[in-house]
């Protein structure tokens, strides 16, 4: 879905620049542009075709008895479940729960991670002490903590904790590395104007790290969703992760597949949103460092 959006954006910008080029276009350039458009259309057609092929195969294979429909369900059955759950409102409720938990999780992970990275930047002594622990915690599979979080924090809080835990340490490491990569001459520049350490942070280090923060955000959206779903497997009374476990326990593959489709939609939505933020912020930011 995201890649479709990206290709259509590319073709849109290509046609826009072609329009602005004015009347003096040579036939060779015209045919080059036509070639570009044709190629973009081919790629999109293949992407749609692939989805259709997969859906047809998924519908046909169980009906022909090639595979057991108990294990896979059918797209038509999934669509019926989807429609029914949409009508009685339960789908919206469960999706909303998961969506909110994910957003809270990655915003929490970002904010907490940024604060930790600032603390480490502020005191290199602290960084030297904590560095090995952060590396180990980052490498630790956070999924292993789900039962502990459930026992300590209960059902609701443990899901948020999971979403934050999954993204926190990556954020700290990414941002700290970004802070360290700031051109030391830019820091000297503001120090020459008498800047305090806080001013170095707010005038140089934080604004200079905006591209790093966007990359961290992109990584975190995916990770937070993983954290939330895994947390819901264990703890929840609602949410798409809960639907997946519940559906598999009662052997209702329709339910499981519906939840997975919605999850894919949510992750695409979040990814597209982050891409939009990235495009606007980086344009205002000067398009990265030319210096």
């Amino acid at each position: 879905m995201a890649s479709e959006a990206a290709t259509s954006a590319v073709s849109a910008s290509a046609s826009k620049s072609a329009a602005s080029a004015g009347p003096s276009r040579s036939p060779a350039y015209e045919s080059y542009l036509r070639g570009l458009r044709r190629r973009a259309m081919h790629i999109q057609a293949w992407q749609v075709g692939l989805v259709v092929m997969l859906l047809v195969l998924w519908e046909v294979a169980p009906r022909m008895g090639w595979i057991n429909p108990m294990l896979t369900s059918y797209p038509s059955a999934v669509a019926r479940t989807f429609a029914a759950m949409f009508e009685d409102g339960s789908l919206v409720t469960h999706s909303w729960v998961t969506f909110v938990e994910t957003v809270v999780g990655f915003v929490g992970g970002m904010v907490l991670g940024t604060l930790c990275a600032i603390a480490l930047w502020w005191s290199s002594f602290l960084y030297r002490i904590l560095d090995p622990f952060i590396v180990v915690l980052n490498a630790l599979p956070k999924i292993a903590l789900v039962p502990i979080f459930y026992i300590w924090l209960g059902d609701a809080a443990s899901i948020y904790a999971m979403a934050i835990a999954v993204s926190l340490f990556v954020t700290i490491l990414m941002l700290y590395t970004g802070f360290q990569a700031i051109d030391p001459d830019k820091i000297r520049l503001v120090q020459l104007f008498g800047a305090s350490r806080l001013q170095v942070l707010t005038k140089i280090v934080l604004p200079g790290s905006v591209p790093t923060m966007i990359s961290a955000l992109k990584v975190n959206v995916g990770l937070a969703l993983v954290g939330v779903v895994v947390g819901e497997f264990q703890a929840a009374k609602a949410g798409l992760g809960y639907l997946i476990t519940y559906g598999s326990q009662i052997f209702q593959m329709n339910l499981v597949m519906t939840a997975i489709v919605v999850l894919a939609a949510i992750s695409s939505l979040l990814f597209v949103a982050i891409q939009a933020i990235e495009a606007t912020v980086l344009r205002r930011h000067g398009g990265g460092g030319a210096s």
Partner: protein
Amino acid sequence: MLASSASAQPAVAIRDVTLNYFTPERETLALSNVSLRVERGEFVAIVGSSGCGKSTLLSMISGLLRPSRGSIEIDGRLVSAPSPRVGYMFQKDTLLEWRTVLDNVLIGAELLGLDRAASHERAIDLLTRYGLGEFLHSLPSQLSGGMRQRAALARTLCPEPDLLLLDEPFSALDYQTRLALSDEIAAILSAEKKTVILVTHDIGEAISMADRVIVMSRRPGRIKSEHDIRFPSSGETRPSPFHARKCPEFSGYFQTIWDELDLHQVQ
């Protein structure tokens, strides 16, 4: 320019400055017993091979770095921290790419807490005079290398420093831009009657721009010799850097300083 040299107090007085710094591997003597007087309105160039400590000396004059021994005074006052009366230009333009050109120029005023309206006016005036009037609200990434370095000069001059420290400000530019820009900057600085210390490894740049060239030895950095640069052939006034390069005196100075630098031993 030389009229003020008789006055008692120099703009910069460096007395017996020594600097050593430590790394876990070794102790390095970077500068050894450097003494130098720079008069008000004088343009002094310091040349030396890379690693001779000339940039370190500039950092100490700016107040970012303290000497291990000795003292540095600006206008009779001991340097202990960066001062708004000293302007510094880096090798790279160090423009902040997320700020517009105008906001880049105003960063000094912002941090020093200077009057907003007056600084704003001065920044616009400087940028307009340096040919960047149409680019006030552009981002640095939209400027060429020479324009970026002119914007950096405007940023340095906006808080009206008396002393300018130039740390190889042209070395990141291509040759043509470098010649054109050093001409422009020399004209701007002599019109504003600033005291300037230029650090460079480019002998031609030093001779063409400075009233006096200081040659530093390799590590530990020491002052090896000093050369007053005069171009009697071009009359009373000092020629522009571009014309100075064509004066008959130029090649003589160049040869003398080249021999003293012993560059061929380095690379």
